[in-house]
């Protein structure tokens, strides 16, 4: 609970970066110097692939926000587990590899997502680790209307 609140604060601070001064929000659990880049590819419903990277410990929502990735409506509640607009679909083996299993609260929000699959997760709840390098996730179409891109 405390952790997810903290996460919420972090991503909120980060989205303020869009308006205000750049400011880095660190994960408190790891020392700074160890953070490595993790490559992530977002596949939009239109098929377009966006290759980008984040740092270890970043959530997938952080990756979208920090890299200004254009996904309509993504992360509406800013990582506070109250909207499900950060719904992402994983490949089965990546899904199995994710270190933290979804909490009841995450599953509750996922229940409201469109195109829910067995390998769906909420992006704001997934933190990058080195192991996830090269991760490919699908962005469901209802958030990102295929016709518009």
């Amino acid at each position: 609970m405390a952790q997810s609140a903290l996460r919420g604060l972090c991503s909120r601070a980060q989205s303020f970066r869009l308006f205000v001064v750049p400011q880095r929000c660190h994960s408190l659990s790891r020392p700074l110097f160890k953070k490595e880049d993790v490559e992530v590819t977002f596949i939009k419903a239109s098929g377009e692939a966006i290759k980008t990277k984040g740092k270890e410990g970043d959530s997938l929502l952080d990756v979208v926000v920090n890299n200004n990735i254009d996904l309509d409506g993504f992360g509406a509640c800013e990582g506070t587990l109250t909207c499900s607009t950060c719904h992402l679909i994983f490949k089965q083996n990546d899904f199995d590899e994710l270190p933290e299993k979804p909490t009841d609260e995450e599953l509750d929000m996922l229940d409201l997502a469109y195109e829910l699959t067995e390998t769906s997760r909420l992006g704001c709840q997934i933190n990058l680790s080195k192991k996830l390098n090269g991760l490919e996730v699908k962005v469901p179409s209802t958030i990102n209307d295929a016709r518009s891109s």
Partner: protein
Amino acid sequence: MIRYCSLSIQRSVRTFMTSSTQSQVAKLCIVGGGPAAFYTAQHIIKTFPECEIDILERLPVPFGLVRFGVAPDHPEVKNVINTFTKTAKSPQVRFAGNVNFGIDLSLQELKEAYHAVILTYGAEEDKTFGIPGENLKNIISAREFVGWYNGLPRDKDLNVDLSDENVVILGQGNVAVDAARMLLSPLDELRKTDITEHALATLADSKVKTVYLVGRRGPMQVAFTIKELREMINLKDCSSIFEKEHFQGIPELIPNLVRPRKRLTELLVKSALETNPKPSSKTFRPLFLRSPLSFTGDSKVTGVEFDLNTLQGEEFEHQTAISTGVKESIKSGLVLRSIGYRSVCADPGIPFDKQKGRVINTKGRVDHGVYSAGWLSTGPVGVILSTMSNAFETGANVVDDIRQDIINLNEKKPGLRAILSKLDARGVQTVSFDGWEKIDQEETKRGKALGKPREKIVNIGEMLQIAESGKKLTAKG
């Protein structure tokens, strides 16, 4: 030098707005300033940046039900306001608050001023039962109750009497659960929220101990979502007590259900059958298979007469409630009616389905040059996510129609200039987004003094006065 600089920036914005493939700027008007409005605008400026979008909102303040519906103890949900604010500050968008569509301006006038009008004015009325006693004192619609604790100006003087131990809420949707949670939450939890001071004062004297949440059908047909149920079950100093007998046969159904109904039913069954109620001073009591027949009381309500129902039909989704002829009464000094919102037909020119209480539309297309989005379009169901998705669809259709010349941009339209001069002549003071930000600052300041994130101003006159110090809205952008 500096002046020259800013001028040239302005000029380049203009060139950018007029000189791409389509040489004309689309002048669009959005009526209503809730999530549907901001999401539609967001989608259009992204996919067709050569546009000018004016958002006309009845209240001096934006954001619709995010401000006046979403419960005060769910502040995270309101983070969407940050994105809406970004949209409102885009060079293409202007917000005009305190403009009452249908009274201050007609649909015809908007059609004359803009290439297209997008109606997103929501669902602001409520459904009634039409049964005896419904006019008794302290029978209140959940919509008004929500407006009251959330500072909606029209509900600021609502008289809510919490002197009785029992409350009946009729309806089993999320709004009903929100209302129950407000009545059952420890006061100290609410104090930290942006709940209005008048509601807080009334709740401080509350004698309410038990809140019944009554539905016509059974546990398989509840309309609330699992997050709201879990919150009730975990509420401090409150136990949830279910009628076990209505869960017969339900555990056996679970394996064949799909999400989200599956997880919701699992949690219901678990709470109903497996857990013992914790000792607590308050109780949340969902009741099933009851339809209200009448309300009792002389001037103030004292109870509700129910007809007990049974379910008919095979598949649970389609089961209907039919009366068994057996009656029951429940004592209650406050009744909240929470059986849905409905839209009104704000202008006689709108094709409107009175039965369903919404605008007649196909994927957001209403009439030539007229569109709709959000709850006005879909009916009052779903969460912000569904409103967002619906608004994106309408936005995409508007852009499609522009690209296919169904909306003809060669037609000259005066846009905001004409609208502002009409409003001016009619003595309507408009509130710009800058004006709203002045109100926002004042509310935050007042909240801080009370240890809350904000204290909402509930008086329209006062809002207008504060907004006056902000920049005036002009047609120049």
